[in-house]
């Protein structure tokens, strides 16, 4: 088991900055080699749940086993790579310097690091390795963040809205890389998104989250059989309930 979360609860009281919010996940699992998606509208709790998994936010209750360890232990994150929705790299570093520095703090194998960076840069259409981060556009920064996420030998990738700001060509190139990696190394991927086209063809398990609770979960085959497509599946759950309200 890559990830097993049980009985997770997190409540925010109403404050000046935000509305009251409560996350309640009874059970959530990610299997080795799977491509799992959490789908839901903005503010439904996707990022909060991911951050709880990574111990960036603290749950009020619940238990999480991550890669065979309690999720609070740093060993649990040894074979995990995370792409946050919002990130901040040191602006004065070049892309190459940043990748080298971050590889240093994640215990990434340093042998042939330059060659691996070059190979990944080619797969991601990156020809600005020697540009400073501060000089990059939003799409370039997102690509660099993905490059940083996939530089290393991990078993589990958590991608929070990974295709924000990317054009269709770039998105396709990166998605192809991810699928190829998954087939070659049997890695597990957990992705959160609210853009259905991102995961329509790739996901094999989907969870729908709304107002902090998982309202439905199904395999891709079940979805295709019962709803025809992921889009219909999604709309059936969110549109109809909206209409009823």
């Amino acid at each position: 088991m890559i990830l097993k979360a049980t009985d997770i609860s997190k409540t925010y009281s109403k404050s000046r900055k935000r509305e009251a919010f409560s996350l309640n996940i009874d059970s959530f699992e990610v299997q080795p080699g799977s491509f799992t998606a959490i789908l839901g509208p903005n503010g439904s709790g996707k990022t909060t749940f991911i951050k709880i998994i990574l111990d960036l936010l603290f749950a009020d209750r619940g238990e999480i086993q991550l890669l065979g360890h309690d999720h609070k232990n740093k060993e649990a994150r040894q074979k995990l790579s995370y792409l946050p929705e919002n990130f901040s790299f040191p602006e004065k570093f070049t892309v190459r310097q940043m990748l080298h520095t971050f590889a240093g703090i994640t215990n990434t194998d340093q042998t042939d690091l330059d060659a691996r960076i070059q190979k990944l840069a080619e797969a991601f259409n990156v020809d600005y390795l020697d540009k400073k981060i501060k000089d990059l556009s939003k799409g370039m920064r997102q690509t660099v963040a993905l490059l940083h996420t996939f530089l290393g030998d991990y078993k589990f990738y958590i991608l929070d809205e990974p295709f924000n700001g990317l054009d269709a060509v770039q998105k396709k190139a990166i998605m192809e890389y991810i699928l190829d990696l998954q087939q070659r190394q049997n890695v597990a991927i957990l992705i959160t998104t609210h853009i259905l086209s991102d995961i329509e063809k790739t996901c094999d398990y989907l969870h729908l989250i709304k107002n902090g609770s998982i309202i439905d979960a199904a395999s891709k085959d079940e979805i295709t059989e019962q709803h025809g497509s992921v889009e219909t599946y999604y709309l059936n759950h969110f549109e109809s309930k909206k209409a009823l309200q």
Partner: protein
Amino acid sequence: MTSLNIQLMLKNKVLWAWPIIAVLVALLVGWYGDIQSAGNNYSFLFGSGNSPLLTSGFLIKQITGFFILIAIIGLPTHFGKNLESNRASMLLSKPISRTDFFISEFAAVITVTLIYTLITNIVLAVLLAVEAGIFPYQLYLGILFYIPLYILAIYVSIVLLLVLTRSYLASVLIAFLLLAPLSGFLLEAETFLSFMGLNTELMVGLADGLSYLVPSTAGVDKLMVGLEMPGPDAAAMPEMSGVLINGFVAFNWQLFGFVLLSCLPFFLLSFYLMRRKQF
């Protein structure tokens, strides 16, 4: 993590002003000034043209004060950035514990401060060797103690304020403006309280206890007071002058221990808050 922090600090242009200014001051003093030994191997006098000769203490006080100010402005910027949710969530999602995250910050600050203090010492050593023909190694050791210790004392407070407020400006201003007078008052509480007619046993005891809770930059200043005035009257000075004359056997280790101890409560409190902080 420490290496990332060191790299971030070494890329900080504000901090680079420190060694650059040290070199410029040395060049200016060397070319336009007149430096001579004060008749011993631990202090010197300098002047320019017809201006009167000033003690080495004056020069040391000016440049160390200026470097400390640069460090206080430059050092916290990157910890402020690291504490922002977007950066912290990236770093803490890696196999880095919050303890590593916190300790590496201080390790990096001490390393960078020592590097820049060493550069300053080397520049000063070359200047004094060439111009005055002296090598006051105890002065260099004193500076090597003084600058990092002072910066550590004030940085502990800035880190606590950063964790609490997330505001770089507020943290630096509060720490810089309040710490010296507050710790000064607590260090000499008995004198101040008696001046105000409040020197009861309770008040003195209270102030004495509080002095262990606030990083004592005043303690560092007192410890190194002789560094600032090792002129002809050095022998009369109780602290660092004693070291300059008699070596480190005369160092006030008790006061040094007090300074370190006074930094501990803020350090532990920020560490505790850091472990409970959510990103």
